[in-house]
């Protein structure tokens, strides 16, 4: 299959043009690694349904114009999400600002530009290498052992492409020490009419007995391209509850990679994607049960309208000896249009004997008899549709483990559902 590739000469020129700083060695190593692989293509099994050609073209365009420094930190910044009472880390066009003097003693955040070791930065696949090769800064967040953070940590990733094309990288490294408890809100927004591609990476290490709750809301502009990867390593007795909402963007790919390597470790992965127009949202999740007993719960739901296309791929690997694994997965989809398309695929690989695994996927339309029933009680067709889709989405909204973000998330979803449903009448 023919596909666009990154212009290597432009790429090298750009990486080398970044002034020497604490990240130079990292960039150079990652760049040579990236040179060998390039971007993933639909020829790669994991990228079968998601073609990054638009991201490659945009990147080439941006690489050819580098040198013109992008216009960061517009006054319009800091959106409604920052009203949530949290310890904020703000990443705007790849530049990181911390209100670290506001942080309590059990929370530390350091910037790579100010000295944390680049050994903490993973660059082990095409997109993380691309990320590391062009990285301007990274932040490392540590929650101290045996403590509970009194507020969530907020990570606001905001990009603005004023006129021209823009490519940005963000990297967040999180370490939750033994028996600590922390909550996270990751919010993605974008502004500006320019073409834009953001490549975000989060690395989490959750030590023994620690507990992390994490909600991610991606509400990007409808012309935005994004690749997003969160990998989490979960130790003995540790728990991650991750909930993801994708309601914006044009071409979006999320990878959620969970490594359950400690006994009695557990992960919950929930997600909701709302896609209309010609949006493409791809969620790939992978959980490795290295030891047992360990538990994974996964529920993703999607509502698709118009010519949108979504992908769900949930992989669970139960390694040899991981007896006592309990892995359950489901993916449910509601198609509001005959032109929308979902590719859903569970993948189970089981190499242990004593395991409990289940998966189920459904694709359906709104129940017309239920719509008529609601109308016969005086609700308009739109109100009936809104009520039914909201109820479908509620199963995931209700799983959001960060209460502080709930109103913000609900409002964003209600607004998106409204526009998604009114889209239905323009077909």
């Amino acid at each position, binding site marked *: 299959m023919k596909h666009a590739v990154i212009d290597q000469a432009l790429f090298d020129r750009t990486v080398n043009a970044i002034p020497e700083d604490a990240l130079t060695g990292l960039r150079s190593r990652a760049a040579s690694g990236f040179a060998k692989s390039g971007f993933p293509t639909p020829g790669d099994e994991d990228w079968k349904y998601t073609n990054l050609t638009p991201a490659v073209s945009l990147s080439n365009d941006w690489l050819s114009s580098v040198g013109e420094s992008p216009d960061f930190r517009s006054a319009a910044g800091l959106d409604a999400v920052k009203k949530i009472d949290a310890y904020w880390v703000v990443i705007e066009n790849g530049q990181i600002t911390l209100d670290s003097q506001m942080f309590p003693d059990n929370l530390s955040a350091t910037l790579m530009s100010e000295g944390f070791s680049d050994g903490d930065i993973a660059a082990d696949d095409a997109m993380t290498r691309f990320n590391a090769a062009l990285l301007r800064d990274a932040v490392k967040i540590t929650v101290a052992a045996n403590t509970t953070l009194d507020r969530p940590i907020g990570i606001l990733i905001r990009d603005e492409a004023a006129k021209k094309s823009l490519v940005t990288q963000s990297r967040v490294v999180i370490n939750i020490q033994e028996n600590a408890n922390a909550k996270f809100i990751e919010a993605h927004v974008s502004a500006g009419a320019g073409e834009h591609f953001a490549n975000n990476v989060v690395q989490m290490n959750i030590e023994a007995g620690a507990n992390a709750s994490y909600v991610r809301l991606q509400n990007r502009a409808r012309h935005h391209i994004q690749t997003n990867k969160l990998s989490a390593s979960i130790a003995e007795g540790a728990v991650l509850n991750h909930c993801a909402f994708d309601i914006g963007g044009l071409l979006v790919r999320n990878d959620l990679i969970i490594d359950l390597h400690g006994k009695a470790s557990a992960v919950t992965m929930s997600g909701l994607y709302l896609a209309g127009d010609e949006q493409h949202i791809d969620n790939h999740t992978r959980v490795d049960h290295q030891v047992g007993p360990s538990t994974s719960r996964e529920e993703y739901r999607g509502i698709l309208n118009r010519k949108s296309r979504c992908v769900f791929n949930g992989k669970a690997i139960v390694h040899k000896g991981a007896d006592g694994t309990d892995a359950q997965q489901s993916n449910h989809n509601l198609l509001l249009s005959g032109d929308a398309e979902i590719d859903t695929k569970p993948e189970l690989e089981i190499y242990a004997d004593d395991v409990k695994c289940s998966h189920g996927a459904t694709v359906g339309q709104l*129940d017309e*008899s*239920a719509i*008529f*029933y*609601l*109308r*016969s*009680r*005086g*609700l*308009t*067709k739109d*109100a009936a549709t809104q*009520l*039914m889709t*909201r*109820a*479908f989405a*509620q*199963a995931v909204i209700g799983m959001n483990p960060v209460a502080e973000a709930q109103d913000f998330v609900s409002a964003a979803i209600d607004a998106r559902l409204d526009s998604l449903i009114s889209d239905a009448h323009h077909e």
Partner: protein
Amino acid sequence: MLEIKDLNATIGETQILNGVSLSVRAGEVHAIMGPNGSGKSTLAQVIAGHDDYKVTGGTVRFMDEDMLDLEPEERARRGFFLGFQYPAEIPGVNNAYLLKAALNAKRTYNGEPEIDAFEFLKLAREKMKLLDMDPSFLNRGVNEGFSGGEKKRNEILQMAVLEPRLAILDETDSGLDIDALKSVANGVNALRAADRAVILVTHYQRLLDYVEPDFVHVLSNGRIVRSGDKSLALELEEKGYDWLREAKSA
């Protein structure tokens, strides 16, 4: 209140209603009986505005308005209520939420203010007591996991809260035990008033022991073949429906 003239309706290529005419005045209770497949449920669904059915002739006027021009929700807001034979299950939509939304849709149409949460709960609890229903019903998903009897009681609860001008109850009595049947009858009798009307669509005369109809009609092959008072229901119970067909063909 309701004036049906020579109503013809089809579903797909199949003609189901072949010229139904029926006149219902305020204060009356009518029973429509008939064998399976006679068109009873179709008649109810057409009056409610289900778009699977196509009206190919005739008129339906409700409160001096052409009903067939109205959307289903517009019919409901004007005071029409259909108790479904098979009420839809709507997982995740709270029963109380739907009741309140339905009531407010009607109040808004009538130029009344929306009901507040406190008044609504008071009203709903009062109606549930009348129907001998557990208050926990309100917090469940609409018909979600309800037994057949619970679904029918829930229909009557909606009717009791919405207080329609005209209610058609489509086989609300089928599959009910005697206690549930009495509760349903209580609900219907409580609604009886000089300015309201009720049409009971039923296969059996059982419900009519508890709700006494003013008129009984027999529907067969998509038209009303016989009308009478409540003694007609007893006659049907005794003789079945076959004698009507014989009488007709004779």
